[in-house]
Every structure is written in C-alpha cells, then in structure tokens.
C-alpha cells in the first residue's frame, strides 16, 4: 500500500534502480497484432534459450505491448545497443542469442531495410517510420511490460496522480482547459470544458467513463494503448474523476478486445493493491473505483449516449442529446465520457504542464494524435504525430509511400464517418478543423491510403454498406436513407447508374445529415459526399461510359488476352477457377466472357502483362 506521494517516489526510485541493473535486455513486442505474428512463441523461445544457457541473471526479457510498426511485427530490441530486429520468428531466437547476445554481432538479415534507400537500419532511430513521430503517449509502450505496475511506476507513472491529488480540483480542470486538449474519440470537443461542466453540474453522484468501444474499420490505436500501457489510461481516469468529483467509473471495452480487457483488469487489480485505486487513494481521502463493461461489438455503441444506455443494461441506441451528458448522462447523473487516448493524455498534461502541452500542435488542435496508418502504404502501423503535420508527411515520410510504386489516389481519415481526401489536399495540415473543412474529419484516427487500383465509388459503397449494417436503425433518415444510398451506389457500380442518381445522392446526403438523430447518422454521408466532391469524374465514368477506371467494379470490367503478348504459358488457364480460359500451350489463350466471373486471377498471375482489364 502506497500511502503518500513520498512513498510513491521512494518506490519509483527503488524500481528504477532495479531496472538500471538490468543492463542487458531483450525487448519483444506483443499485443494482439504481434501475437498474431508469433510474438508469444518468440518470447517463450527466448525464455527457454536463456534458461538453457543459464543467462537468466545476466540477460533480462521484457515482453511489451505494440510498438506501432505493425508491418514488421514481432520486433525484438536488444539493449543497450538498441539493435532493432524486425519480423522475428522463434526460429531466429538461437541465432540472436548466439550472435548478438553472446558475441555482440549483428544478425544482418533481421535488420529493417528501407524500401526507398535500400539502407539497412540498425537501431530504432535509423528507421524513417519512427523519425517524424513524437510518441509521447505511445512511446512508453517500449519501456514497460503491460502487466507490470512496477515498470510503470519506475518510469514515473502515477506521479501525475500524486501531483493532481495535491492540487485544487478547479486548478486541474484549468490546466486541462489551458492545454487545449480536445476529445480524441472523433468529436474534438474541448476536454476541459466537458470536465468543467460536469464539475459544476449539480448532483452528489457523478461518473467518468472511458470509451474503448473502438469500431472503425482498420483503426486499433485504443486497443494498442490499452494492451500496451493500461496504467496511463487508468491514471488519467483517476485524475479526471478526482477533478470532477466522481467516485465511480466505467471502462466500456468491446468484446473483441480480450487482451485489452485482461491487461486493463490486471492493471486495475494491481493499482488497487498499491492503494492507487479504490478507497483513500494515496492517503488523500479520495475514493474511486472502476468497473469494466464489455460491449457486444456494435459500432453504434461507441456513440456516447448509446454507450451509456448499454452500461445501463439497455440496447445500445443513441438518444437525443439536447441536454449534455455532463448534466444528465449515465443513469441521468453528470457524466464525463472520454476516449482512451484522451485519458492517456491527461497524466502528460498534469506532469509537464499545460504550457508545454499547448506548445505542441496547431493553434486550435494541441498535442499529438495517434493514427492507424493502413492501406496501400509501405509502412503500415500506428503512428503518433504532432497535430499540424501534413498528410504528405504521414503518407510518404512515415508511411514510406505507396506500395509497388503505384500512384497515390486518396486517403480516408476519420473512419466510416470521415471522408476521402485527394492528392491535391496532401499538403493539408492534419488537425480537427482543417480536416472538417475539407469534408472529412479527425475521427478516432483511422487513416486508410488508397492507390490507383482503388475505385472511389466502390470505396464509398463499402463505407455506406458498413454504416447500413451498423446503423442502430431507430431513426428514419439513417436507417432508410443509407439503404437507399447503398442501393444507388450499387446501381452505379453495376452499370445501372443514371446522371440523376447523383442529384438523388446529394439530396439523400443532405437529408441524412440534417435530420438524423445522432452523430453517426449525421456524419454517415461523408464517405460518399467527399468521394463525389473530389472524384466526381469517376462517378461520371461509371454512369456515362459504364467504365470503372480502377477496374474494380466487376460488372463494368471485362478481361481479355492480348494475343501478341501471350506466350501460351497456360498459367492463367490453370488458375482460372471457372475454366473460362482456353488455349493450347505456347499459343495465345482466349477468355470466354460468358463463363468469366471477373475474379481477376488471370490478371494477377500473368507474368507477361498479356491479360488486359478494360
């Protein structure tokens, strides 16, 4: 039990000294994505190997959460040299021990090679992916084992809590207000104002909630944070609860995040044991505890009022929010609901001060933001960048440009409610307001990059279909309007489009955004609207020329074989799943368009560029 701030400092010092002794250290990245690529077997291989060679006392092992470079998981870092091995398999473990640990030699083939410069990168700092990042939130993942509270305390964890508990509640809120922190869940509402309003709201019972119902396709920064550094979120929540005067909190985690739940549960348990959670936190007399609430996995449950209904045991459907949750939220009590990343920012602000925090980012968007950079870039992964960085820097400098030398077409930000931005906007600053002005949004930080092979009408159809499935269905415009939008997009993709469909789409977008009950509905037309705005020519090509420029929409595409180029290798005929390709060996082949299902297999396998897609 830690009873005071001094106790905490002493303990931190003790743990730090213990860590300092662990000079030789092997860090293995984990998390859900790492585990999927075999990090668990790498960890156990290291453990076994170290044991067999009786190196246990000299060499320490630290399994961590996600380190962001998903493309190259699992990652192994050897301290103190900071040697950075990527895509390590358990088979590589004996080699690493033999060479690097025992002989201090580098295993060349495990180093990362920059695809642009073809240079081998020895350490973390040499890799361009990390170069432009400012990982204040996410950077600590490498420094700790998620299940160890000692690691977190050793690196200065919970000092912000200790500091906050010594501060006046209004002063904490003032600090958050001045820092300019805005909600990271998508809305971008100033966190300080939210807290202030809840603090001033009448009522003896108040709640804080952490929204970890991350549901955007291709976005997983909240999961990585919960898995990799759960204490930072916990600490933020305790500070927030103290500031507004709440004694109960909830974290709403989606069912599909078992590891996040497990790690957060362990973190809570250990924090309780240390007196950092529960009754009389750090001897201050402040009581606060948290319950984990596991969501059923509905996208709409991430909407704040729906989330609160879900915690109340009702179906997760949003309610009209004329009265803010800070006045009447969970069980009609004043409630502060913040996203995982927002909570994780709080200790940083308290420890370093609002001035420091406000110095990062742009005028109206402060701090850093974690994005999950996915799609057609070379380096996919989680990236934490200061607000105000340009899209170009993210896509090209961090993401390493487009794969296979293809041409960039667009980048989708903000998840299904966001929009697609074209090449002309690559120099746009990434912050809340610029993105909204451009017809997209910050959202929770999804960033999907498209290249010339992506059809923008198809992309719009994908996101609208996703929203059709995920709309709660209670209000007419969202339930019915999105279905109609999907039907029209389907018609366009399948060659039945008419020019008046574009007017209908715009009217639908107007109606849905104006009359829907919740933000999910109001923002739902964005993917369609932004693609229609920036890629109208693609829509027109689909409608007027019945042609899909990217060759994605099957109904508008035909495959033929260029007889001049075809060498008669028979590969395509062998691969064709429906036997639509005929031809003798060493003679030009022919595709039977009647039989062809347009799967594109022949196009992909042809080594002579003989299959044409029109």
């Amino acid at each position: 039990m830690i009873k005071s701030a001094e106790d905490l400092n002493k303990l931190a010092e003790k743990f730090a000294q213990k860590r300092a002794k662990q000079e030789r250290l092997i860090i293995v990245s984990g998390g859900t994505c790492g585990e999927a690529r075999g990090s668990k077997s790498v960890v156990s291989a290291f453990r076994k190997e170290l044991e067999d060679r009786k190196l246990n006392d000299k060499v320490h092992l630290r399994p961590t959460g996600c380190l962001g470079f998903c493309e190259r998981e699992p990652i192994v870092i050897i301290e103190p040299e900071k040697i950075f091995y990527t895509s390590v398999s358990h088979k590589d473990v004996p080699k690493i021990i033999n060479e690097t640990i025992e002989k201090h030699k580098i295993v060349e083939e495990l180093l990362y090679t920059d695809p642009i410069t073809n240079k081998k990168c020895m350490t973390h700092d040499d890799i361009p992916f990390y170069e432009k990042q400012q990982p204040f939130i996410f950077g600590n993942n490498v420094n700790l084992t998620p299940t160890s509270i000692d690691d977190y305390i050793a690196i200065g964890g919970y000092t912000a809590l200790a500091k906050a508990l010594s501060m006046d509640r209004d002063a904490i809120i003032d600090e958050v207000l001045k820092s300019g922190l805005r909600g990271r869940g998508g809305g971008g509402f100033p966190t300080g104002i939210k807290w202030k309003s809840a603090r001033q709201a009448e009522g003896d019972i108040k709640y804080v909630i952490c929204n970890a119902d991350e549901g955007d396709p291709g976005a997983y920064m909240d999961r990585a944070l919960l898995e990799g550094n759960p204490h930072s979120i916990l600490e933020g929540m305790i500070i927030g609860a103290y500031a507004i005067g709440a004694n109960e909190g909830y974290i709403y985690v989606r069912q599909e995040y078992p590891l996040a739940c497990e790690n957060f549960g362990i973190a809570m348990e250990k924090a309780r044991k240390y007196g950092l959670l529960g009754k009389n936190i750090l001897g201050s007399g402040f009581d606060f505890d948290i319950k984990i609430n596991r969501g059923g996995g509905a996208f709409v449950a991430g909407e704040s009022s729906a989330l609160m209904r879900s915690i109340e045991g009702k179906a997760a459907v949003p309610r009209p929010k004329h009265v803010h949750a800070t006045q009447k939220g969970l069980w009609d009590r004043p409630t502060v609901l913040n996203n995982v990343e927002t909570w994780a920012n709080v200790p940083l602000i308290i420890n370093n001060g609002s001035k420091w925090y406000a110095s990062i980012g742009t005028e109206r968007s402060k701090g850093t933001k974690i994005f999950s950079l996915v799609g057609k870039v070379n380096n996919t992964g989680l990236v934490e960048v200061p607000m105000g960085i340009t899209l170009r820097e993210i896509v090209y400098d961090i993401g390493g440009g487009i794969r296979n030398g293809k041409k960039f077409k667009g980048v989708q930000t903000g998840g299904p409610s966001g929009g697609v931005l074209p090449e002309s906007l690559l120099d746009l600053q990434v912050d809340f307001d610029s993105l909204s002005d451009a017809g997209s949004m910050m959202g929770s930080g999804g960033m999907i990059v498209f290249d010339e092979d992506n059809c923008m009408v198809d992309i719009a159809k994908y996101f609208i279909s996703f929203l059709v499935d995920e709309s709660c269905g209670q209000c007419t415009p969202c339930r019915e309007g999105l279905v109609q939008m999907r039907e029209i997009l389907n018609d366009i993709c399948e060659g039945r489009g008419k020019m008046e469909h574009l007017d209908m789409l715009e009217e639908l977008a107007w109606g849905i955004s104006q009359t829907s009950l919740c933000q999910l509905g109001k923002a739902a037309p964005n993917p369609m609207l932004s693609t229609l705005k920036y890629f109208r020519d693609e829509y027109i090509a689909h409608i007027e020329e019945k042609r899909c420029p990217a060759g994605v929409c099957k109904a508008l595409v035909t495959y033929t074989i260029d007889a001049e180029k075809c060498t008669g290798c028979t590969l395509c005929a062998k691969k064709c799943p429906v036997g639509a390709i005929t031809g003798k060996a060493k003679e030009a082949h022919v595709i039977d368009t009647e039989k062809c299902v347009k799967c594109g297999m022949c196009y992909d396998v042809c080594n002579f560029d003989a299959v044409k897609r029109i």
Partner: protein
Amino acid sequence: MAKLIIDGIEVEPDPNKTVLEVANELGIEIPTLCHHKALSPSGTCRLCVVETIWKGRSTLKTACTYPAWEGEIRTNSPVVKRARKFILKLMLAAAPEAEDIRELAAKYDVFDTEYKSRESNWNKKCIMCGLCVRTCDEIMNISAIGFVGRGEHRRIATPMKEYSDICSTCGACQFVCPTNAIKVSDWTDRPIHPIPSEFDQGLVDRPAIYIPFPQAVPNTPVLDDTSCMHFKNDACGVCSAVCPTDAIDYKQVDKIEELDVGAIIVSTGFELYPLKKIPEYGGGEIPDVIDALTMERLLAPAGPTNGIVKRPSDGKIPKSIAFVHCVRSRDPEHGVPYCSRICCMYLIKQAMLYKHAVEDGRAYDFYIDLRTNGKGYEEFYQRAQEEEWVTFIRGKPARIIQNGDKVQIWSTDTLSGRQVKLDVDMVVLAPAMIPSESGLKLLKTLRLATDEYGWIKEQHLKLRPLESMTAGIFISGVAQYPKDITDTVAQASGAAAKVLDMFSQPELVRSPTIAHVDQEICAGCGYCEKACAYEAIAVDPVKHIAVVNEALCEGCGACAAACPSGAVQHSNFFKNQILTMVLEATRKYS
C-alpha cells in the same frame, strides 16, 4: 427577458415542456408519427423536425424532444418542408403498403417516391415508430415485444421470435400502431378476446373506454372495468394521460341513489328473439343470416361500415338479400303467439334502403301477410313494390342453409302454390319482440304485474291503458306490448300527462276502502308486509307495529287475510260492519 418565438408568436420559454407541446398549445400543427402523449418521447421518426435558430445558426431539431428553450422556432419554413418531404419519401419506400402514410404524405404534396421499395423491411407497413414497443413496455409494464436487430434488419419481435409467454393479449400494440402493420396474433398463439361493440351488434370491436352510442345521454365515455387493463394489473392509464381535462377517475364506483318520487314511468323496451334459438334458419351458425338490428347498423351512414352494406362473412357487398318476416312472431308453437307489429314496416324500409345503397341489388321479402295499418304505411308498401322493385313472396320459409358462399332459402310461394328455393348473398330476419331480460328484472323490483309473456299489465286495456296495476307507476312504450315509434311516442306523452295531472291535484283522491291497523292488537309480526303486492304496509322499526301507506294501498285485502290476530282490517269495511250488514239482511229470516 428571454423569449421563445414560434412562427412569429412570442411565448415564455419553458424547458419543462417540449416545442411540440408549446406549439400545440398555440394551435400550431406539427405532424408526428412516433409521438404519443402518454409515452416517453423517442424522437425517432424525425417527421416533427422544426428549424431552430440560435445565435444565428439554423439547425433542425425534433419538436417532440427539443425543450422549449429561448430562441426562435420555425415549424413550416422551406427547410422544414424539404426535410419532411425527404422523411415521407423514405417512409413510402420503406412501407409501401402503409395507406395512412400515403395519405399523410399527400398532405405534404408527396405522392410518390423516387426511392426503391425496401425489400429488406420485415413488414411492408411498419415504419418503426416503436409506439407498440413503448406501449407494451411503458404503459402495460409487460415488454412482450421489443426491437430486434440493427439497421435495415431492425424489426419488432418477441424474444427469439417465439410466441410470447407474457403477452397479455391486451391489443394495445395493435391499437396504437399508426399504420395497421401489426396484429396481436403476431406475438401470441393464445386466444384473443376482442370486446364486441354492443351498439354495433358485434360488427366491430370497441375499446374498454367508449361512448355507448351517438347521442347517448349523458354523452360521456364509460369505462368498462371488466375489460380495462388498468383494473387488471394497474397498468395503462393512457386515457387519463391524454384527457385534457383530467376527467378520468379510476376510483369511481357504481353508486345507488335513493330518490323519493311521486310517480314512476316504466319504459323498459324490448329485445329481439335470440338468433341462436332459431336453428332452422341457421341462426348463429350461418354468418350471413343476421337480424334486423344488425342490418340497421349496416345501413346507418355513421355505422361501422359507413353505410356501405357489407356481409359479415367476407365483407363483400351482397348482391341479393332476403328479408324474412314473422320469425317466431305469430308462432305459438315455437315462439310467441302475438304479432310484433313493427317488422312489416321496418323490413320494407330496410329493403328499400338496401336498394338505394346497392343499385343492382335484389331484395326479396318473405311474409305471411303484411300489416300496414298506420298513417301512410300502405302507400309506403306500395312504393316498395312498384317503384323500388322489392320482390314480395308470400310464404314462410321452412329452412335456411349455407350453399357455398350463398345462403339458400327453402320456402313456398302460397300465392302460386309453388316451391321456392332461392340463393341469396345475405338473409335478414325479423325475430319476434320479447321483453328485455334486464327490463324484467326491474319489473320484479317494482313488483309490477306482467302478462304471461312478460309485458306489463295495464289496469284496463281500454279505459286505463297507461296505468300499471300499482298506483303511481305508469307505462310507456313496448314495455306494455309491441308498438311502433308513433304509438310509443303517443303513449309516452299520455303517461307524462297522467303524471302531471296527478301532481297538479292539491290532494290525492283514493278509494276509501283501504287497510287499517288496530294498533292495540298488532304484534308487529310482519305477515302483512310480505303479503302486500304494493309495498303499502310495513312494520315500523321503532313502534314495532304495522303502518299503512295510504297513498299506495289498493285495498285488495291481502294483508287483512294474512293477519293472524285480526289487527289489519279495511276502513269502511270492518268485520263488524259486514256482520251488521249481514244481520240486517237476514233479519226477516230470523
């Protein structure tokens, strides 16, 4: 001073009310679908959107949920109209078979939708307003149904889509549905007990709170506490929630009022001989054999079918109807020997009304003989024959049977002597008039003498037809014997005049021969009280002797005969007076 401006009208803001409530108070109409006064607002149909202007920013908000804060509201601006049209078009696509939505849309100049009909909707009429779900949950406290699924697959269902164990079959969900999209039988396989409307002869159902019939006196609704859900499980209360004057009082109970009156006019009316007791005519078995009262409702312009004649079995307009006279009237073997007197005329009237309603319809009247003895009655009959082409067949049908979707009548035509077998779409019977059961109960309470059929006995059929056998009780209408409206009105006026005549006298003049109690002898045994048919003698609870109400005593002598001690005798007819008379009369023989 903060102001709320709705369509230019300034009012006091009131955050405890919604914009919809305030607008309605101002008489501004805002269309709603998912709103119900007795339910919590859900704001999901979005039809009630209004334009709010706050700090120069215009946004659309649902009037049913938006608090009446200060600011400006426009309920009918171009953007509101555009939004409502948009919503209605989506609804037309989602629920193409919802007639009510089509009608509502037409009010907003939306006659068609450019959107595709939504095939995935579970129900072609449901617009997902959720009124049924909220009613079952909030009003009935049952929650037998709820929303299932998300997005386009959202639907109304019971858990696991199985028949509900907890559905109370109250029917509130079906009643509240604005588009007739759901039925109680969708949720339960238990029998549903509708409440047939008594006034409409069971042709339609009625709610548990209802006005018994148009022009009822008093013209106020009554609560049927045997059917009302509020009395079953303390639920519902919708009527109370929607009543603008808070007139509903669930604690009201039947009251017995005791009135001291000088006279009573009995007007207990009649019933028709029950159809079920007429098996040879398929009474109660063949749905398209109905009685004349039911036909009366079918013909009424304000009736359940709005005056369109539809037969009960399938709702089709019958192209031929047979009207059968003298069913159990003038039939001493099976029914009553008397003539019901009114059937001839009303069946002719109904035949003519039917011919007016269904121009190509054919009407047949089966009669024994037609009794048109009233002013203008014979002419009316002639008109039916000659101008309206009603076919009159003299003969009493022997049987009526179902023949496919027709009804077949077996009869004879006694004028031609031929057998008749006639297929018609519907048969209207004129059953005999009999005293009503509840009327008979009242007569018993009043101790009124009746004849063998239950009609009230008058003092003298020719000389005193308005007075019952009990002094002060008068008769009007069919309670005495069958008569038509003309005769009833005449008799009622006569009875009223009789009462007024009685009341206008300074004193009541009675026959001097009435009961008298010798107070010295009476032991208060009460035998006389039991014997009196007129409630004219009773034992005084204080003095404990019998006391005679001289205004009621008819001088019948029953009490005197019953008295064991000889205390009750008749004034001016005492024993010794009789004996003296006997002595005087027999003196010369002695």
